[in-house]
């Protein structure tokens, strides 16, 4: 049954091709049916493969299926081959499951857009690329998916390309990703040259046999992680993700929350042996993750755009996943990836529902009191917020807690502290969002209020489903303190991910840590309540007291401006200068100069060329005389 797994990616691919080629001739209804159906088909295949894999003994993983040899040149060989193991299974289920719901939601959200067909073509293509990414059995093919999702991200961010900001955001996303990709390619090359293959199984085997020197492994791991920071929006390459909110909201939910941005985490988890073997690289992963988690959270505190808050929150949450990977709790990292996919896409989709209701308004200062107008949107939104804030018994609590506990258990107290700090802020900004949007006075613009309406069923039903999963998804990965076998998720992943070296902490400590987490979340929520419901003057007072801090946070630490001034501008200006002064003046100048010199000598010699036949004849005669003279003597 698992053998069907290689079929998973092709339904969306086919659908996408059909939409691109014949989309203009298809009716809207058929388009939606086909696009959603294709993803659903993939989901069914994924489910079948997953259920089948439950019965397979751990030693038989991964199951590899080579479709055809792809690139072959000398020792550089890469097949078009897929592999299936528990990690792929989780990813595939998330991608197709959440993906399907978002496709469904899009049917409502994009209903009145002129680019409806184009949108679904892109979305299907994205699903295909993402599935290639998670199913690829070698890094070269993985890179196909890796870049493919990047392309779709570019296309979908710039979906409304008439808007200059959207077009620019798409381009920025692609280029920043490419910087990361350079690291990925180099890492790939290092691996390939070292072991002559890029198959994951070969890499793992090589690590087992000690074919990699420690330093090389670290170098490779860091290079690959550079790729991950690009794709998963970590410091310092996170700048594209907030801008990516220019795309349609379902896109933000699918690509920039649930799936694509987690590709980096998936890659690190996939190569967990390499990172663990290196050690140093894992430390760097954890550190970067922790820094990102806090850094992004601080930026989320002051944003007024509802989607941007969620974007920074995504960056921050991705940071948590990397903390998990970095401290060796890969399973926890992937677990958070999995729960995050539900609650963050839920948040995005409900935000989308809000925006939809307000005719495109995204500024929270122009919302407020929406609770009563959007009865079917508000509860899911709230559930998502609670889940992400780490309130017990919802999915986010289990996964985030697993990560932080492991960080503590491994003795990474600094990382743990940063994670905790991030958690406070997470709770704070999420509830700031809730209070500003759904509670308090109405600040809705009259025009928008006139059209205010709850979203159609096709949008709210996916919300409901996602809300349910946001609640229950965590119960397959209960904390270890509840029993050896409580963490089903971890055990399921064991064929791929070796559990970390035992850094044991007692049950008491673990309970205590949990308590701290909960307390921290509660503090965040209460402060938000205090600031934005109880006494809305406090934030203003704070801003007045610490204007520089507010400015710094509100302007996102001026990172974009700094990148622009330090990297982009010098590059463009410098190139311009070189073009004007070197290419045109020096190289071309030398060329034109030599042409001019030749011309000058020609002119000088042309004095001899009088144009009179007789003069030529005279010289000719002289030549004849001399020639015969030479012949004679």
């Amino acid at each position, binding site marked *: 049954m698992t053998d069907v797994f290689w079929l998973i990616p092709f339904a969306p691919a086919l659908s996408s091709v059909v939409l691109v080629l014949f989309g203009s001739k298809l009716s809207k209804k058929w388009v939606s049916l086909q696009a959603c159906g294709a993803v659903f088909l993939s989901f069914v295949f994924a489910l079948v493969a997953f259920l089948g894999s439950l019965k397979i003994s751990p030693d038989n993983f991964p199951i590899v299926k080579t479709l055809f040899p792809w690139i072959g040149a000398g020792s550089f060989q890469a097949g078009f081959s897929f592999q299936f193991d528990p990690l792929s299974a989780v990813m595939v289920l998330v991608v197709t499951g959440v993906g399907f719901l978002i496709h469904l939601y899009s049917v409502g959200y994009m209903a009145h857009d002129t680019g409806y067909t184009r949108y679904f073509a892109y979305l299907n293509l994205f699903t295909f690329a993402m599935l290639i990414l998670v199913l690829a059995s070698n890094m070269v093919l993985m890179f196909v998916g890796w870049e493919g999702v990047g392309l779709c991200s570019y296309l979908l961010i710039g979906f409304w390309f008439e808007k200059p900001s959207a077009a620019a955001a798409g381009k920025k996303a692609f280029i920043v990703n490419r910087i990361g990709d350079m690291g990925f390619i180099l890492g790939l090359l290092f691996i390939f040259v070292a072991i002559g293959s890029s198959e994951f199984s070969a890499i793992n085997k090589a690590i087992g046999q000690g074919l990699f020197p420690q330093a090389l492994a670290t170098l490779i791991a860091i290079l690959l992680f550079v790729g991950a920071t690009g794709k998963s929006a970590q410091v310092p390459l996170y700048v594209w993700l907030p801008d990516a909110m220019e795309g349609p909201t379902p896109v933000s939910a699918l690509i920039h929350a649930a799936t694509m941005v987690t590709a980096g985490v998936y890659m690190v988890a996939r190569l967990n042996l390499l990172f663990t073997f290196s050690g140093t690289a894992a430390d760097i992963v954890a550190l970067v993750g922790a820094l990102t988690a806090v850094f992004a959270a601080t930026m989320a505190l002051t944003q007024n755009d509802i989607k941007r808050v969620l974007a920074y929150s995504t960056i921050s949450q991705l940071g948590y996943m990397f903390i998990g990977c970095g401290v060796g709790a890969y399973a926890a990292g992937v677990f958070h990836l999995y729960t995050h996919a539900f609650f963050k896409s839920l948040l995005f989709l409900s935000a989308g529902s809000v925006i939809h209701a307000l005719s495109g308004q995204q500024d929270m200062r122009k919302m407020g009191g929406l609770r009563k107008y959007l009865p079917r949107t508000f509860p899911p939104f709230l559930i998502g917020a609670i889940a992400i804030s780490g309130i017990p018994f919802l999915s986010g609590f289990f996964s985030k807690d697993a990560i932080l506990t492991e960080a503590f258990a491994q003795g990474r107290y600094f990382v743990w502290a940063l994670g905790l700090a991030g958690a406070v802020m997470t709770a704070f900004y999420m509830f700031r969002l809730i209070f500003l949007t759904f509670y308090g006075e109405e600040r809705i613009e009259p025009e928008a209020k006139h059209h205010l309406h709850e979203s159609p069923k096709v949008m709210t039903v996916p919300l409901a489903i996602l809300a349910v999963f946001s609640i229950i998804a965590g119960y397959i990965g209960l904390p270890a303190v509840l029993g050896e076998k409580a963490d089903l998720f971890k055990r399921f992943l064991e064929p791929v991910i070796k559990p970390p070296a035992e850094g044991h902490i007692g049950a008491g400590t673990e309970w205590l840590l949990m308590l701290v987490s909960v307390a921290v979340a509660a503090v965040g929520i209460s402060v938000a309540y205090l600031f934005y419901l109880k006494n809305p003057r406090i934030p203003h007072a704070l801003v007045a007291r610490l204007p520089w801090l507010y400015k710094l946070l509100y302007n996102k630490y001026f990172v974009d401006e700094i990148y622009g001034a330090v990297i982009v501008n010098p590059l463009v200006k410098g190139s311009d200068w070189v073009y004007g002064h070197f290419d045109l003046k020096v190289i071309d100048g030398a060329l034109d100069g030599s042409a001019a010199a030749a011309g000058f000598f020609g002119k000088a010699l042309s004095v001899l060329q009088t144009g009179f036949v*007789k*003069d030529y004849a*005279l010289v000719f*005669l*002289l030549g*004849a*005389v001399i020639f*015969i*003279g030479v012949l*004679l003597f």
Partner: protein
Amino acid sequence: MAILLFFLFAALAVGSVLGMIISRNQAYSALFLVLAFACLGGLYGLLGAPFMAVVQIIIYAGAIMVLFIFVIMMINLGEGISPEKKKWTIAAAVFMGLILLAEIVFAIKGAPAVPMIGQEMAGTSPIEIGRLLFTKYLYPFEITSILIIAALVGAVVLVKKRDGE
């Protein structure tokens, strides 16, 4: 007898060329040249090439020079053109011409002796030349005819008055 004829023709040829040089009128120059070419035809006869002699007189002295005179009449420069004024060019040209003359004479003197001419003066009949032309030299012969046609057409095209001229 032959030697007398030779000197007669030679003197006439050189004299008429000198006359062509001296005369200021182009028409006279051309007529002098006709005379020179006719003398050359006679010399060819002395060399035992009667066919060539006839060809020389008909084509050169006849056809070509008529063409020249024709053109001279068309152009009609009236007074004609005075001799060269750039003295040093003339001096240099004459000087070098004479040197060339000296060089070649010197070269001929140094050359091995050539058998006397005139023993078998009647030996070459036009028949044999004709045979050669149509056997060994068939292709050059045909190509020459193409050349002449091309020249004919070319001359017509060149001189033809175009619209607007």
